[in-house]
């Protein structure tokens, strides 16, 4: 099963755990005084810079280090990765941790922005973030994709939704538009795999 889909499933599990009230509450109020929050405000006007830093780190990690190479290798062929001695399980766990950390950072920034927290605040972003990744050229079956592509994908989604807002389109329709774009992107992704698969088979015989 593709890893992203599995992650989506895990996400659904967490929804279930969240309880019947439809909202996860902080077990303990975070010890962040308004003062500290206000001091943190200085980074708030510069989300672009924060994003740029994260993107730069991700690009470095993915394209220049062994960690990144192993990430591609596992995506390209699990079997090959295992047999060449890459610690696949440990690596996958690290990737999930990384993903959760960036999501945590996003949550932090959004908390600063709204000065209030809720467990469901990012829900509408779920579809958009998956859409951005797929439009950016990341294969759902693993092994291909770049950081810069994902950034471009995110920009496309942002432009799309901002444009729709400007055109006074209802939020309801915005979801549908983004969803349609995702479906088209997935179809293209699938057909690409089909085409290369066919080539491979022809080469083999």
């Amino acid at each position, binding site marked *: 099963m593709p890893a992203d889909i599995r992650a989506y499933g895990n996400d659904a599990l967490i929804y279930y755990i969240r309880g019947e009230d439809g909202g996860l509450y902080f077990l303990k109020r975070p010890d962040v005084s308004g003062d500290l929050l206000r001091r943190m405000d200085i980074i708030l006007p510069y989300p672009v810079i924060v994003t740029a830093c994260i993107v730069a780190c991700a690009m470095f990690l993915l394209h*220049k*280090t*062994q960690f990144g*190479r*192993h990430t*591609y*290798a596992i*995506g*390209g*062929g699990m*079997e*090959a*990765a295992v*047999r*060449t*001695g*890459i610690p696949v399980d440990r690596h996958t766990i690290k990737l999930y941790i990384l993903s959760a950390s960036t999501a945590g950072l996003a949550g932090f920034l959004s908390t600063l922005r709204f000065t209030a927290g809720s467990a469901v605040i990012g829900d509408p972003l779920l579809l958009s973030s998956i859409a951005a990744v797929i439009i950016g050229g990341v294969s759902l079956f693993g*092994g*291909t994709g770049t950081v810069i592509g994902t950034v471009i994908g995110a920009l496309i989604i942002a432009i799309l939704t901002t444009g729709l807002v400007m055109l006074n389109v209802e939020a309801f329709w915005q979801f549908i538009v983004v969803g349609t774009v995702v479906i088209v992107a997935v179809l293209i992704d699938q057909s690409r795999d089909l085409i*290369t698969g066919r080539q*491979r088979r022809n*080469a*083999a*015989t």
Partner: protein
Amino acid sequence: MIEPLLSVRNMTKRFGGLVAVNNVSFAINRGEVVGLLGDNGAGKSTLIKCISGVHHADEGEIFFDGKPVRFSHPIDARRHGVETIYQDLALANNLDVGANIFLGREVKKNHFGGVIKTLDERHMLRESRQTLDFLQIHFPTLTEPIESLSGGQRQAVAIARAVYWDAKLMIMDEPTNNLGVPEQRKVLDLIRRLRERGVPVILITHILPDAFAVADRLIVMHRGRKVAEKATAGTNTEELIRYMVGASDDMSEDGALSATRETPSPQ
């Protein structure tokens, strides 16, 4: 007499009641290509997996380089210099040639006193190119994903990887399967080149012409037992097929294991 590089003695492997490998002994000398022949289900693959650490033999011993060894894991076998190339090659198709040769064993550069480590791409590319030149394998480009390469070229990448990591013994499982005729010839050429370097090769195959083309010695298996061991020069297709289908059997119960024993004429 020179000691063989690998010698397997009385190896038996059972899966439940099924005896997949039954009391097999053989030896591989340095710089020799040995063909392991047998019909489907004859136990060739199981025998090889016992040697390369995938399975554990129930009985028997393996001597590698004169020392008794027990490979508990394929990685273990590889560390000793036993490289096995399976049919699926264990390559990452989305990575380029250099990345595949160094897969799992990447070379890193240190920055800031080892705090940050990056991949030493240039070094890896240079080493890859040298190994490929050495084996006289030519690719138009080394920086394209190997997805775009043909089956034979990918086989060559897998062989180059094994050679680069100093394989002392190469085991190849049906390397010419699924390849076009020119490609098959190239792979066979590579095997000959390995022999010239002194790297022995165990070639598992059921394609007799391939075995005759490169092997020095042939071992035939039938239903888990080794039924014949012949010098390639001293045998012919007809005779081998008789062994493969079980019509002839050199290693009958009493005389088993005497690998050098002269065999009666099959006629």
